[in-house]
């Protein structure tokens, strides 16, 4: 078969690129080596993790907050296999949805490992060894990423596990050790902490979610400590051993001092993800990876003129929505359009409770750059809406240019932060000033009022409700 565009990999980068290409009138195909479409995000990433986060959050509410709301129920119990089964159904509904969208847009789906023969020819080897060859004028690589293991402790998938196994556990760990206090570690760690596991997080750096604004990491630690999570920041893990029924982790403080030993029944290693290009046959087209990534120019074009790459397999944040934007951008470029991506304004979110969300520059970056800025903060505690729901943890911090008042960064930790950040991204796309938001009517009572109040605080310290 011959195609205008072929996409390799069906994650949020790949399937979105394929749909947009089809919308633009290209004859399009997509290749996926797994049985289901949707990639990491739908199968073992964003969606299943959120399913478990929501279930476990319901549990903790039932267990700890219903009483105060005036709902008396007998002690609730966790039915983990049902929780995992429901998660599976959520995933299935989503991946089936993608299959439907492929059909609707008349995109040919090939199941199997796609591998370059030359720059226009791709061989697809399916699970049973059958080979199919197709040709395509343009190719978009969207093969995503895989979890990184510790060099001295490969995943055994039994005791030393990655996020993928953590989404499928058969029992609630007694003690889950998490290596890496980034987004995935904090999300999955809090799932099991809510379900009753003891959770210890070992992080090399001195703060949690270290790429985000420092205030957020500090606040997140405060609120997750309330769940009973324990933290070993600034600790370098030196070994992790599967001892059969147990796993033993050793770590030493970076600054010197006593090494620690932790014994648990599972160790989740969430220290990052690496771009995935195995089996893709990049050597056949002369593309070499750099630190695992496929090098691309500002148009996401590789060194081979008809081959593009998007998502986790290229530079930039490993986020589903970043992959999607890149998919759209490549498709539209192929149709001669000139879309933009403002990488500064790709928001980052952690779906703990409370949620963490941010966009723009962090305070550390502004300081480092010597930029004159001002801040305005507002705590959830002072919010009527938060009192009503008892979600009192968290705050909003606005960073704005000292002179022009232009918003430079929005950092939120608090209930519904993930959904709130979109308004902030919109404002920043239009280069709004803090006063612009402060003078925009916000419905009362809402969590978004905290953003408005923080903007008031940033413009002449005139927050009303504090």
């Amino acid at each position, binding site marked *: 078969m011959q195609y205008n565009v072929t996409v390799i990999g069906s994650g949020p980068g790949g399937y979105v690129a394929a749909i947009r290409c089809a*919308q*633009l*009138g*290209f004859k399009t195909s997509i290749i996926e080596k797994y049985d289901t479409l949707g990639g990491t995000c739908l199968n073992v990433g964003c969606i299943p993790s959120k399913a478990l986060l929501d279930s476990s959050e319901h549990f903790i509410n039932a267990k700890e907050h219903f009483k105060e709301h005036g709902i008396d129920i007998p002690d609730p119990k966790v039915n983990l296999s049902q929780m995992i089964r429901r998660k599976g159904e959520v995933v299935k509904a989503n991946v089936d949805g993608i299959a439907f969208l492929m059909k609707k847009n008349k995109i040919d789906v090939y199941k199997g490992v796609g591998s370059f023969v030359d720059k226009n020819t791709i061989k697809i080897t399916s699970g049973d060894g059958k080979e199919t060859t197709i040709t395509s004028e343009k190719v978009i690589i969207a093969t995503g990423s895989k979890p990184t293991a510790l060099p001295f402790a490969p995943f055994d998938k039994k005791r030393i596990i990655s996020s993928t196994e953590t989404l499928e556990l058969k029992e609630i760990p007694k003690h889950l050790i998490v290596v*890496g206090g*980034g*987004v995935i*570690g904090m999300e999955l760690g809090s799932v099991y902490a809510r379900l009753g596991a003891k959770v210890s997080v070992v992080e*090399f*750096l001195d703060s949690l*979610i*270290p*790429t*985000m604004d420092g205030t957020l990491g500090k606040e997140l630690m405060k609120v997750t400590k309330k769940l009973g999570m324990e933290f070993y920041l600034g600790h370098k*893990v030196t070994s992790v051993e599967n001892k059969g029924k147990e796993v033993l982790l050793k770590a030493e403080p970076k600054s010197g001092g006593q090494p620690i030993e932790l014994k648990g029944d599972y160790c989740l290693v*969430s*220290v*990052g*993800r690496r771009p995935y290009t195995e089996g893709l046959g990049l050597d056949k087209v002369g593309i070499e990876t*750099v630190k695992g990534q496929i*090098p691309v*120019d*500002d148009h996401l074009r590789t*060194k081979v*003129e008809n081959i593009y790459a998007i998502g986790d397999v290229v530079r*930039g*944040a*490993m*986020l589903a929505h970043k992959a999607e934007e890149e998919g759209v951008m490549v498709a539209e470029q192929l*149709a*001669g*359009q*000139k*879309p*933009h991506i*403002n*990488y*500064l304004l790709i*928001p*980052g979110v952690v779906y703990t409770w409370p949620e963490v969300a941010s*966009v*723009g*520059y*962090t305070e*550390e*970056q*502004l*300081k480092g*750059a010597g930029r004159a800025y001002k801040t305005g903060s507002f705590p959830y505690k002072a919010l009527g809406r938060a009192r009503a729901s008892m979600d009192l943890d968290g705050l909003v911090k606005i960073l704005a*240019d000292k*002179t*022009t*008042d232009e918003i*430079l960064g929005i950092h939120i930790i608090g209930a519904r932060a993930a959904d709130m950040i979109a308004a902030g991204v919109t404002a920043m*796309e*239009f*280069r709004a*000033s803090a*006063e612009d938001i402060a003078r925009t009517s916000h419905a009362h009572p809402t969590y978004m009022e905290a953003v408005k109040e923080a903007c008031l605080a940033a*413009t002449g310290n005139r927050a009303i409700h504090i």
Partner: protein
Amino acid sequence: MSQQVKVPSVGESITEVTISNWLKKDGDVVKLDEVIAELESDKATFELPAPQAGVLKISKQKGETVPIGTVICEIQGDGKPAEVQPAAQESKPKPAAPAAGSALAKATGAVKEMKVPAVGESITEVTISTWLKKDGDLVKLDEVIAEVESDKATFELPAEATGILRIVAKEKTTLPIGGLICKIEVMEGAGEGSVASAASASTAASVGDANYAAGHPSPAAAKMLDEKGIPASQVSGTGPGGRITKEDAMKTQPAAPEPKTAAATTTAATTGAPAQGSKGERREKMTSLRKTIARRLVAVKNETAMLTTFNEVDMKPVMDLRSKYKESFKEKYGVGLGFMSFFTKAVCAALKEFPAVNASIDKDEVIYHDYCDISIAVSTPRGLVVPVIRNAETLTFAQIESEVVRLATRGRDGKLSIEEMTGGTFSITNGGVFGSMLSTPIINPPQSAILGMHNIVERPVVKNGEIVVRPIMYLALSYDHRIVDGRESVSFLVRVKEMLEDPGRLILGV
């Protein structure tokens, strides 16, 4: 990220190209998609755009011929605003001092020197009329920073880089072409997302004074403007604080007469594949060279009394002579015997007889030239240029031919100096190379006349009462009637005709 730039494959049968010109210098900061070099193959010339922003490191020099796929330069670093990853999906256990510093506009250490560009063929110096930006201001690439005037025209000077402006030439200073106007301390990261204004920090504007965002296009507007090829700086925003709204971007296209159709076109653009019968159009700012040309051409029409007289030449004698001596001429002088030498010689002889055609007006006086500096029009990728053959009246056929070749090559390579293009006393233009049968050329001031050559076509003509087929070229002479009389112009052209139809006259001077 650094990127090596290779010669792209440009066509099936093309295996190698010659680097005809570097438009950017080694070490220059280049923008994404900015044309950095001109390449030439046996079939065509084409432009090489930068595949990413950064600092240019040239590895193959101008004039070198290289196979497709050869690395000819590298673009180092990403000159684009450093991207921030607000939340990488997981923390990586490496000692990451927060990625600060890289995030905002920051000096790259590079300094861009802006020099007076060559703005037109006879312009040798310019005066800085107004600085639109102050010393120390943050200027953005392509933003107009000064107005510059020459004796012929005023033009705008766009910033050649984003960064801090350091003015070298004060207002009212006069500089030669190539003179240093200013320096820009190149910064990266400014310009997109946020203007980290080194300047705004010092010019304290009051809080809420939101015009920092004036001219900032909304995401949809930005895409639309880019597709139309219109820089945001040319659109005046009607949104709050002067922001460019989607509607502003839509309206910037005059072809969208009413919002309804405009909306319809947009949907078509986003949903339709290559739309059929689409009415795309594109707006581009005129280059100052183009503006100068435009202004001058209109000025000629307005300020002279230009008219054109025609004649026809039977080219058979010249062609016979040429085919007879082609080989031996080439052998002896190493240059082909073309028509230009015949025409130039004939023109020089005729100019001697009709000095007014070789004269020019300077206010109340007429300047007569006792030499013939013949301007010849050469078409180049950059447009028409008019280099001069000096003292053509003293040159032999062979000298004229080699001079024509030399000037044409330099013209094509963009190497002609202003010097080489100024001071002609009479012009010859050959529309025949493009297939023109007849045209009325425009004189090249302050000259008073121009000869137009055209294509040679076999036509039936009557010779000695018989219809014969002859290779005929129509000739046109446009002249300034203020100093050239009708009798002179017509007789001049007849003389040229006579000498071409009987080249013996060129030798004998009769």
